[in-house]
Structures are given as structure tokens and as C-alpha cells.
């Protein structure tokens, strides 16, 4: 048994067989087979060699036909390597005598040669390693398929272990088959983490190097609550986690009963719970959990992994679907919130690698620099506003000038639509994210120019504490309940109240039950959280009174460090809502 600690990004526990995908995108297969499986493993091996033989012959004939015999000859040499009797004897031996899997035996046997060639003194001689790699790649392709297949064609329930998963790969994971995933890199609040949470797949990221030490087929436990990954767990550990999975399930069933009950405190005050979503299909999860609306609709997925910028129609179709499916409940659409590196066609100047991307050209800054892209999105938002209650929200606003520019563009587009005779909601509410300390400090001014604000704690914490949350070396300094952050949240709530505009909090902090009492005590009445967290937060609300929450806030104001605060909050919620097993 081996336990590794990573960063918990999506809660829950998964227990299952590992599928390993290395940093080059190959799936790393299991290393050993059962004694009784030698026969069938030899058949797989035979099948792979025969199929690759045919492939190489085909390549040889094609190339020879196109470019001449001399060029086809290289494939003839590849075929000779594939049929090398000495190599084959060795591979057969590894499978039959040492019970290596076909893949592992091939990797070991060919690896000796490729390593030898790679170490030769001249580039020309080192080229030979490529021939060996080519054969290995073909054999592996036959035996296990390439990465896309590995992820999309998973046929039995597994835990995916990878160096990294892109947001689109994460989004395409088959939720029926992928029980959980673990990555070597990544951090909380990263896009992959947010997508994992949206899919409700337990996930741990930022574990550090470990792929070399695991192999496909190993039993793995992913503890998405504690950020722990356990390889080849002992029976006792398995039993403990299986019980935990069962408890989670029964708690979820009990929380389901809360769906139609009002979200209010014991003392009667209403707490509005909205949902954060990333993909249109999540609307179902929102409705199932009893969300009052969508408090944060992230639109980045429209841009990610796309060859081309989304068109106005692309935007409109998904916005219209979300608004329609929400059946009249409000939907807050946040405009593009990405770094320049993530979109297909960024302005030329942004092609320069940024030394500090989090302080660079991203989000509203990028939109304002790339007006045509911004205009496309805003036109679609305005058009969709005829279908239901849509609010638009600008991210990462750090100066009044930016907000005014964005609003000016919106007015401009409204005039265009008027001229074109296209209808839109003239009372469309306009809001901004409060996630940069400067926007908190200047909030009395900002508040005169927006209809609502939403506190984005993920970025607010990062910018207040100057911590890159995806950097493992400093991630421990990233703390939602750092007193400095709490002061900014309280200041935001107070200034917004004075200006009589609505405040919601939409960071990941809002979905964690340990902060609920504190946030209510600090004056928040609206939270927008991941749909799966709604039942738990509602449970907390229905179990406490406003006086209790205000007392918690009062005590916390006197504390001077995050650790102390977190410990206290955990204790308070455990006492108030023992069922949540905090």
C-alpha cells in the first residue's frame, strides 16, 4: 500500500482499477498477468505482431509505389526487425516465464535496443532509435490503442491516472466508466479541476511524479475529499473506504429530500442558492438539486480546444438552451474569462509568452483588446435575453475604466440591434465579478455603475495573498479563510449594501459547508455554488440561526490566522450539523 497526497479538487471517493496515461499520451498498460492468462496473452502478442506485419507491408508498398523502391526499403527493414527471431524469443520468454504482459514484455525487450541507439555518438546513428520506437508504437497501437481511444473507449469502470488532462479531455470523460481521476500536475481552481467538479467525478490533482511507479490494473482509491491517492490498498483500507462510499450515498439520498424545502435559516431568513455551471447539460443537475437559478455560467468551454473562434450563432444556441431549460429562473452569463494562450485566435501581441500570465492579458482585458470577439459574445447574450431572464457579468474588472469600456460596447451593440430590428431585453442587468482587491477598495464607485456584483473568491484569494494556486510550492499559502480575505469579503458586502445592489459569492469557498455559517454571518444572503454542493449547504442553512452565524463571524473577526479560523469553523459546523461528517 502506498499513499500519496495531492490537492483535492472534486469531492467523493472512487475505488477501482487504474488506467495509466503517460505524459506522451500513451496508455501505460498493466505490467504483469495472472499465471492462468499466459495462453491468452500469447495470443494477443501473436495477433499484434501479425497485424503490425501487415501494416508495415502496406506502408512499404504504398511508399515504394509513390517514391520508389529505395524508400520502401526502410519498411522492409522494419519488417525484418519485427520478425527478428531473437527479439521474439525474448519477448515470448518474458511473457511465458516471467508473466509480463505483452505490452510490458515488448517495452522491455525493445527498450534495450532503443536505449543503446539513443546513446550513440552521432545524430545519424541515433536515428536508429526511431526505427525501434516506430515498431514499438505500432505494436502498442495494436495492443491498447492511442490516447483518444484510451479515454473515450473505456469499457469497464476505471480510475484514470495521467500526467495531465486538458479541460476538453476531462469534459469528454465517460461519466459512467470513469470513477475518478488523478493527475501529476494541476491545482485547485484550474480549469480541469472545475470541469471535474462539474462532472461530479472525484479527483485529486498536483500529486507530483508517480506514473512511473504504477501500472494499469493496479487497484487505486481516490479520496477526493482529503486529496489522497492510495495505491494497492490493504483490505482494511478498502473496507473503510467502501463504508465511506456507502455513507456518502445514504447522506446524498437524505439530502435529496431537501430539494423542495425552502433554503432558509432556523430564524427564517432566506438564503438564495444558485448554481455555477460550465456546460449546458449541467442544467439538469441544477434543477435536481433545487437551484434557484444559475449564478455563474462560465462560457469558456465555447473557446477551449476549438480550432476556430465560436460564432455568434454558436454562442446563441447554447445560451438559449440553458435559459430555456432553466424555465424562467435567472441565468448570469459571465463573459470570456481566459488567458490569451487558451483561445484559438488571440491578438498578435498576446502571442508573446507572458512571464506572469495571472497578471497578464486575460479575461476582460483580453476581451477589450479583441473587440470583435467580445462583440460576438455580447450580441449572442443580448439576443438570448429575449428567451428568459439573463444577466451579463464581466470578470476580472480592476479599474472603472474597464467597466465603462465594456458597458459602452454593450450600449453600442444594443444600438446596432435596434437598427437591425433584433429584439433584446432593454433592462438586461449588468454586473461584475469582484475578484481583484482594487475592485473591493473602489467598490463604492463601481457600485454606482452596476446592478449586481459577484465575489469570485478563487481569484480574490490568489490576488490578495499573491499566491499562484496551481504552484505546488506555494499552494499551502492559498487559503480561503485568511483574515485579509475575510476582511475584503466583509467590506464588499457592506459597500454593496450601502449602494443597495445585490451581492452573490460564487467562488469554490461558497460550496464548502465549513464556510457557510461564516459567510452568512458576514452578511451574505446569496451563494452560487457547484450544483452538487447545494444540498449540503442548504442542510447547513436549515440547521442554524442568524444569531449563531453572526456569533461565528464575530469570533472569527478576532482571530489572526487562517489555520485557527479553519479549525474553529470546522468545529462549529460539526456541532451544528453533525450529519455532515466534517
Amino acid at each position, binding site marked *: 500500500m502506498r499513499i500519496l497526497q495531492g490537492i483535492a479538487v472534486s469531492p467523493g471517493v472512487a475505488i477501482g482499477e487504474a488506467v495509466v496515461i503517460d505524459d506522451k499520451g500513451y496508455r501505460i498498460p498493466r505490467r504483469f498477468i495472472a499465471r492462468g492468462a499466459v495462453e491468452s496473452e500469447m495470443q494477443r502478442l501473436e495477433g499484434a505482431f501479425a497485424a503490425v506485419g501487415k501494416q508495415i507491408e502496406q506502408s512499404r508498398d504504398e511508399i515504394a509505389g509513390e*517514391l520508389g523502391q529505395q524508400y520502401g*526499403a526502410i519498411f522492409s*527493414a*522494419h519488417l*525484418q526487425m519485427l520478425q527478428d*527471431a*531473437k527479439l521474439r524469443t525474448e519477448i515470448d520468454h518474458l511473457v511465458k516465464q516471467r508473466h509480463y504482459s505483452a505490452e510490458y514484455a515488448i517495452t522491455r525487450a525493445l527498450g534495450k535496443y532503443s536505449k543503446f541507439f539513443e546513446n550513440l555518438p552521432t545524430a545519424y546513428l541515433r536515428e*536508429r532509435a526511431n526505427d*525501434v520506437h516506430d515498431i514499438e508504437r505500432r505494436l502498442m497501437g495494436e495492443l491498447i490503442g492511442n490516447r483518444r481511444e484510451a479515454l473515450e473507449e473505456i469499457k469497464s469502470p476505471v480510475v484514470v491516472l495521467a500526467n495531465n488532462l486538458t479541460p476538453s479531455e476531462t469534459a469528454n470523460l465517460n461519466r459512467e466508466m470513469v470513477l475518478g481521476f488523478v493527475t501529476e500536475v494541476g491545482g485547485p481552481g484550474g480549469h480541469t479541476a472545475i470541469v471535474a467538479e462539474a462532472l461530479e467525478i472525484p479527483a485529486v490533482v498536483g500529486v507530483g511524479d508517480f506514473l512511473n511507479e504504477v501500472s494499469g490494473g493496479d487497484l487505486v482509491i481516490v479520496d477526493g475529499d482529503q486529496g489522497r491517492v492510495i495505491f494497492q490498498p490493504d483490505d482494511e483500507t478498502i473496507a473503510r473506504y467502501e463504508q465511506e462510499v456507502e455513507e456518502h450515498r445514504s447522506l446524498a439520498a437524505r439530502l435529496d429530500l431537501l430539494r423542495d424545502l425552502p433554503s432558509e435559516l432556523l430564524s427564517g431568513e432566506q438564503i438564495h442558492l444558485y448554481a455555477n455551471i460550465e456546460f449546458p447539460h449541467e442544467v439538469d443537475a441544477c434543477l435536481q438539486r433545487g437551484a434557484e437559478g444559475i449564478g455563474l455560467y462560465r462560457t469558456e468551454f465555447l473557446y477551449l480546444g476549438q480550432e476556430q473562434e465560436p460564432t455568434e450563432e454558436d454562442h446563441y444556441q447554447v445560451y438559449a438552451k440553458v435559459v430555456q431549460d432553466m424555465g424562467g429562473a435567472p441565468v448570469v452569463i459571465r463573459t470570456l474569462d481566459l488567458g490569451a494562450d487558451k483561445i484559438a485566435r488571440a491578438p498578435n501581441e498576446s502571442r508573446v509568452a507572458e512571464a506572469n500570465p495571472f497578471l497578464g492579458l486575460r479575461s476582460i482585458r483580453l476581451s477589450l483588446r479583441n473587440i470583435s470577439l467580445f462583440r460576438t459574445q455580447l450580441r449572442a447574450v443580448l439576443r438570448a435575453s429575449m428567451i428568459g431572464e439573463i444577466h451579463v457579468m464581466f470578470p476580472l474588472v480592476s479599474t472603472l475604466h474597464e467597466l465603462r469600456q465594456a458597458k459602452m460596447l454593450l450600449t453600442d451593440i444594443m444600438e446596432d440591434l435596434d437598427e437591425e430590428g433584433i429584439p433584446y431585453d432593454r433592462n438586461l442587468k449588468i454586473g461584475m465579478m469582484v475578484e481583484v482587491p482594487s475592485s473591493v477598495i473602489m467598490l463604492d464607485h463601481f457600485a454606482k455603475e452596476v446592478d449586481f456584483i459577484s465575489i469570485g473568491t478563487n481569484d480574490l484569494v490568489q490576488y490578495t495573498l499573491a499566491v499562484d494556486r496551481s504552484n505546488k510550492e506555494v499552494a499551502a499559502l492559498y487559503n480561503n479563510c485568511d483574515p485579509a480575505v475575510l476582511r475584503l469579503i466583509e467590506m464588499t458586502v457592506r459597500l454593496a449594501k450601502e449602494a443597495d445592489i445585490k451581492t452573490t459569492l460564487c467562488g469554490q469557498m461558497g460550496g464548502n459547508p465549513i464556510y457557510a455559517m461564516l459567510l452568512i454571518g458576514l452578511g451574505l444572503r446569496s451563494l452560487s455554488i457547484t450544483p452538487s454542493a447545494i444540498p449540503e449547504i442548504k442542510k447547513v442553512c436549515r440547521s442554524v440561526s442568524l444569531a449563531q452565524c453572526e456569533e461565528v463571524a464575530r469570533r472569527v473577526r478576532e482571530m489572526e490566522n487562517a489555520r485557527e479560523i479553519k479549525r474553529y469553523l470546522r468545529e462549529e459546523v460539526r456541532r451544528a450539523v453533525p450529519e455532515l461528517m466534517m
Partner: protein
Amino acid sequence: MGGGRRRTYRRIDSAPRRLNRNLSVGEMTHQHATRRIVIKNQQGLHARPADAFVKLANQFQANVEIERDTLRVSGKSILDLLTLVAEQGVQLTIIADGPDAEAAADALAALVDTFVEEDEQPDTQPD
């Protein structure tokens, strides 16, 4: 060519190999043959010539090994042959053992001699 026939060589290999392991025929038919060859083509014994060599070697019953200095590998394995890193000018010894060892050694030595033309053709007149 073939002036070095029946030349004796010392085995410097620290773990000497059995040469006659595959012999099932009687002692009468057993032959042992060695040929010294020099790699003349510019690119050395790379994949394509090695392929041709192994193809030919496999047509004989005799066990065929190739030696470069202290290193000796199977002449019927292309992967092994490539590990000799036989560049232009390198001297190799073909060692054949078995009923058709003489014929094998002659044919293989002759083949290596043809590598010059075969290899230089695509450089001077590409199709």
C-alpha cells in the same frame, strides 16, 4: 576476395559462446568458416543493408555470427547487427558454423561487397 580464409582468431570475449549448438547433423558434414570483411559504403551497415544481410543469412542452415573487435552478435538478427555500429571502414568477421557454413560465409561476404553500389545509387540519381 576472401584472402583471410581459415585465419585463426583469438576469442577475447570474457564469456565465450558455444558455436556448434544447432548442429544436429553428423560431424562429417560440419563446416566452420570465417571471412574478414570491410564495410565500404559511406553510411555504414545501416538498416537497409542489414536487412539484406539478415535475409540472406537466414536462408542458410548454418549458425552465423558477426564479430567486431570484442563484440560478437547473431548474424540472423537485424537488431543485433545494428548494435555493432559498423560504420564505413570498420572490419568485421563473419563466422559460420554448420553444414553449409562455407557457402553461407561466401555468399554473405559477397553481399557485403555489393553494398557500395546499392547504397550510393539513391544519392547520385534519386528517382
